[in-house]
């Protein structure tokens, strides 16, 4: 019982992270129809932003700084590389996001080295016991903040005019232009939100484990699985998807083999894409026909 609880608690924390990165994928994809392969690296850039800020700011503010850094990197990426390539095909855009991912990773390596980094947790203290499982206080922050961020995003998209305009752009770009919504401005907002969500939550995660410059790829792949489970469309299903990915990984590593857990998750991704590209939702988002 306690070991099951332990798996669930760890999966909740890790899943909140994967889900947040996945939400970043979804926001950008809905808006522009492209998958940003640099999403994981942007999140890691946010994490390092928080590491740097933690030198002279309290941890909670450092996390905020991390979110802002990731948002800035994301928006910069849009204006410097995605927007100039508007007329090009999907292939070129995707390659450029892969290249941007490499650039971000190498810049981080140059500045911070390859060694892992960490900073102090938001609130000091040891783990809490929940129904026989242990969970570090920082992980509660992680889960709590990701839920808050998710709710804020949901409110933004459902209730605010800008949020509705963003959705309108995603639904029908031409009609959005007809009513006077500027696509460029909306895309910038989308990239900023995607970066902030992924980078902020990644920053909260840094104190419980470590962060290194090369983390982007695996983080991105896990976030991508979460987004796929969300049908590349629904934010809530994406958060749930993040939890499911983490649950599979945690359970497999606890009960079968720690070493092969990641492999199993990626095999699941390939099967998922081929067999059920619509994820947990009913609508087919993946562009297979």
């Amino acid at each position, binding site marked *: 019982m306690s070991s099951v609880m332990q798996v669930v608690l760890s999966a909740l924390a890790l899943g909140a992270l994967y889900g947040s990165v996945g939400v970043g994928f979804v926001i950008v994809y809905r808006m522009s129809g492209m998958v940003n392969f640099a999403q994981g690296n942007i999140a890691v850039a946010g994490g390092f932003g928080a590491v740097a800020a933690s030198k002279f700011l309290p941890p909670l503010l450092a996390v905020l700084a991390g979110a802002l850094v990731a948002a800035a990197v994301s928006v910069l990426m849009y204006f410097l590389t995605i927007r100039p390539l508007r007329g090009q095909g999907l292939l070129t855009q995707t390659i450029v996001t892969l290249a941007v991912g490499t650039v971000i990773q190498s810049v981080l390596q140059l500045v911070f080295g390859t060694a892992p980094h960490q900073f102090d947790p938001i609130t000091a203290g040891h783990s809490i016991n929940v129904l026989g499982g242990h969970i570090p206080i920082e992980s509660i922050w992680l889960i709590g903040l990701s839920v808050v961020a998710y709710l804020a995003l949901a409110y933004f998209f459902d209730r605010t005019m800008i949020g*509705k*305009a963003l959705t*309108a752009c995603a639904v029908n770009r*031409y*009609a959005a*232009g*007809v*009513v*006077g*919504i500027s696509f460029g401005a909306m895309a910038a907002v989308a990239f900023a939100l995607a970066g902030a969500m992924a980078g902020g939550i990644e920053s909260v995660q840094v104190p419980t484990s470590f962060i290194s410059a090369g983390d982007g790829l695996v983080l991105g792949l896990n976030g991508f699985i979460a987004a796929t489970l969300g049908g590349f469309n629904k934010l809530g299903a994406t958060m749930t998807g993040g939890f499911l990915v983490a649950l599979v990984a945690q359970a497999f590593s606890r009960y079968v083999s720690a070493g092969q857990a990641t492999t199993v998750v990626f095999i699941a991704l390939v099967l998922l894409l081929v067999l059920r590209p619509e994820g947990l939702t009913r609508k087919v988002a993946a562009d297979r026909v």
Partner: protein
Amino acid sequence: MNAALDVSHVSFSYGRAQVLDDVSFRVGAGEIITIIGPNGAGKSTLLNVVARSHRLRTGEVTVHGSRTNGMNQRAVVRLGCVLVPEGRQVFSTQSVHDNLLLGGYIRRHDAEHIHKTLAVVYDHFPRLLERRDQLAGTLSGGEQQMLAIGRALMSGPSVMLLDEPSLGLAPQMTERIMRILGGLRRETGLSIVLVEQNARAALDLADRGYLLSGGRVVLEGSSADLKQDRTIQQVYLGGTASAPAS
């Protein structure tokens, strides 16, 4: 006399294919004009050029005397010239009410305007009020057309460009939409440019008409005159049409 919309000598090409060749027309305040013509005549392109969805290269467009040549889409909507696009193009996954709010996006900070205009739209289209919270994609074709018109009204336009509102609609529904447009003009003094393939319905409503064929205006005149003109049937149904219209 200052026209609500003045389009002069507009030409347009996609790549090497010229779609519009020196097209001019004007609309007075409170006037309804129609641009009719067979498919492929360039009607949609013309409206998209005026609404700045396509870039204007040759020619000049003025709305209430202001040249729109360098403007983007948003600025043209601000000037009071709004497009109801072909095929409705509603935001299908958003509610009817949200669609209307988005129509007023450029005036979203003017709460009073939004409130007042919403009331006007729901008054004209009680069906939309009934379906306020329904997703726009679940509406019937006719209802979507009403929504598209309502959405355009939300920006408080003085000139409305309608692209094939009868497309795919049964004749009765087309008639109903046309009557609504007539009512709008009467009550709000709206100027309307109606692009239609359905020539008879359009000429019934409009004051004047232009016949577009192969990217050129081949005929213009009052609706009454155009209705009598045999050229239209020839352009639509081929050169040797002999039977009189029933």
